[in-house]
């Protein structure tokens, strides 16, 4: 598989959230604001790259029968390290993401990529796959939070994750026409449902057009 294909595959064709439907727990919960989404995306990318790297390094050494438990140990260690680093250096982001950083451990994306890809491919391919999947996850989470925040609060705002006070951009479009339902948990389900419906609509239309000619 060409190197670029591995990377591109993770972005759209096999996007972890929109196509593989992995890691929905965290995707729905933290997409209330753009900063959360990007912060969580960065955390997932870090963990994914490190875990794919370590697992592809050790792939020949790990006994076949107990590979899943070993992956769980490696991923749990990495997630805890990322959690402590975030607690120390990006305090506001850490408090706003809350319990969902430790929950990356049970996020099916990382274990899924470790088992189905990193355990059979070379280090470079695994890194590319991790990068593709991580950025795919971040794009998906940013898209969801874009809709939820824009329609939910009528405006968009992005803070610098490293120190909360510095605002990168913040603007208010239609403050009093906002549908605040979207910022509540119910809105997360509906937003993701509509986005997935649009993707399915797009795929059906494409296949029908190809079938039509």
């Amino acid at each position, binding site marked *: 598989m060409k190197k670029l294909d591995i990377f591109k595959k993770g972005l759209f064709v096999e996007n972890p959230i929109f196509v593989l439907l992995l890691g929905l727990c965290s995707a729905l919960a933290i997409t209330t604001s753009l900063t959360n989404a990007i912060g969580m995306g960065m955390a997932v990318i870090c963990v994914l790259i490190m875990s794919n790297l370590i697992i592809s390094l050790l792939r020949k050494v790990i006994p076949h029968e107990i590979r899943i438990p070993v992956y769980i140990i490696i991923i749990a260690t990495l997630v805890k390290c990322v959690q402590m680093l975030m607690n120390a250096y990006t305090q506001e982001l850490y408090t706003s993401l809350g319990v969902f950083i430790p929950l990356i451990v049970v996020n099916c994306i990382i274990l899924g990529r470790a088992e189905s890809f990193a355990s059979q491919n070379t280090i470079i391919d695994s890194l590319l796959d991790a990068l593709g999947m991580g950025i795919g996850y971040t794009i998906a989470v940013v898209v969801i939070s874009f809709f939820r925040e824009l329609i939910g609060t009528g405006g968009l705002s992005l803070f610098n994750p490293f120190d909360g006070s510095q605002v990168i951009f913040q603007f208010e479009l239609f403050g009093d026409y906002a549908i605040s339902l979207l910022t509540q948990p119910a809105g*997360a389900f509906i937003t993701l449902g*509509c986005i997935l*419906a649009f993707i399915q609509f797009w795929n059906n239309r494409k296949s029908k057009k190809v079938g039509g000619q």
Partner: protein
Amino acid sequence: MGLFSLFIGLCLVNNVVLSKFYAVCPLLGVSKKPKNALNMGYAVTFVIVLASAITYLLYHFVLVPLDIKYLDLITFILVIASLVQFVEMFLKKTSPEIYKAMGVYLPLITTNCAVLGVALDNISSGYNFVESMVAAVAVSVGFTIVIYLYATIRERLEISNVPESYKGIPIALITAGIMACAIAGIAGLV
């Protein structure tokens, strides 16, 4: 806070699945038939209560005295994983018919966000042992209720005419969203 209001609070008001998004993957993936959903609910209830008890005891009698609180995440996830394996083995040995009903869902629970989520919440909200047990039971009862109701709705969805592009997962998510609206309706209870 009284134990009863804690129970209602966690079981219905801020229900774990609909308001904190724990265990959304099993909700979408597994619940096709209500009977299966109930079996899954029992399996999850059994594991969550056991896991919360063990993780609480381990945290307060091993991690705190040894001052290695930073090992909480790896302890919890390894305890949950081995608990699932022990429960599956125990069921295989002692009662095949329970295993036939519940055994299918046990391996799924290792990556279930609800089990780890409850264990972490019990610690971070400073509950004592009784309160965390009540919280564990409340969460699992709430999970079972939601997944059972959800399965009955999805059964009816299979035979209703859904717009072409909404078939499958999108309509499942919209249904969950409407259920979340309903649950949000009783927010003022506690």
